[in-house]
């Protein structure tokens, strides 16, 4: 009986450690890893938050440049209420550049770089939308757009490129009310 108790105790400790590891791996505070779309999908879908925001980002997009400070502030304020996945595209060479850019600007957001070496499409975000959000209308989206999934990975709302920054923030805030 003592041996069984000891075995169960060790098993419980092991399971607990393993669970903690999984939790750490699935929610990095800052990530600059180069991922595949499937990796990103797994990361987003495994999040248990009620709101999961997938936001597209490109350093050369003027609209992104304009909206990023607001997104950064919004994330800092709402970090406990949602998971943010800032999705960029590139390869390992872009990783350092993007890291430097974000550091220079002082942004504290989780960024995931999707390896675009195998994506032969100039609208790369479309591939991500297609893979992560069946219900999204990807044709109306662009860089600086986002979609929000619920805890079961169903679409709650998406933005579109005809909306301005204020409208985007209103959409985000309305989900937190």
């Amino acid at each position, binding site marked *: 009986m003592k041996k069984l108790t000891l075995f169960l105790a060790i098993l419980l400790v092991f399971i607990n450690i393993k669970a903690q590891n999984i939790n750490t791996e699935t929610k990095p505070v800052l990530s600059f890893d180069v991922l595949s779309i499937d990796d990103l999908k797994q990361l987003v879908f495994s999040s248990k938050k009620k709101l999961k925001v997938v936001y597209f980002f490109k350093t050369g997009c003027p609209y992104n440049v304009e909206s990023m400070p607001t997104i950064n502030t919004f994330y800092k304020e709402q970090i406990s209420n949602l998971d943010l996945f800032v999705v960029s595209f590139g390869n390992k060479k872009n990783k350092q*550049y993007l890291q*430097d*850019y974000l*550091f*220079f600007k*002082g942004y504290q957001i989780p960024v995931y770089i999707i390896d675009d070496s195998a994506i032969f499409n100039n609208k790369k975000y479309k591939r991500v939308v297609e893979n992560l959000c069946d219900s999204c209308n990807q044709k109306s989206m662009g860089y600086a757009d986002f979609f929000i999934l619920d805890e079961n990975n169903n679409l709650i709302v998406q933005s579109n490129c005809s909306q301005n920054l204020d409208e985007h923030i209103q959409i985000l805030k309305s989900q937190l009310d």
Partner: protein
Amino acid sequence: MRNYYIKVMQVTSLFLLTFLNINAQNEDRFKFENSQTIEEYVNTHALDFKNEDVFVFNDFEAFIKFNNEGYLAGPLVHVFNDKGLYLESIEPYEVEKKLSNFKKIKNKPSKKAILVDDWFNNLVNYKTQEPIVKKDKVDYYFVLNWALFLKKPDSVKELSKWYKVLQRQQTDRDENIHIVLLNMDFQDSWNMSKEKREHLLKVSNQ
């Protein structure tokens, strides 16, 4: 006295060469500043400068030496290595890549590189007038040049962002660096005679 006026003429000619748009300004570009006017400028433009990081030249001779060696320009960033040897000046267009990633900074000083001590020995805090205390065992010394006479508040605001990036390098990445915000204006604290002040302003604002 004669040497003094020769120096004044030297500095005048260099000013004119360096800042050719002087004449485009209606208002006098160069004035004598003090801790109060510097603070007013910092507050007006909401510059998040720490008092202990802001330094000025301790006298007119130091100013002239700095100018004659061609460093009186801004806003820009001068970098010295861990041995205090001058590495390079970073222009605004390259601050993003170099201040966010020190590996991008030139790593070999030239054979004639000046020492950071040559500058620091001539600097005092703008408010306390205390000499600068050089930090030892740092990896880099950064000197950020700015001035009211630049008449470019937006550029100085940009410089304040560079200053914040360097502060984040210290706090977020544990970089061991020494940051100096060098105000290059003429200073009341130089205690120049009225005659000399007027002459200097006259030739500088021509």
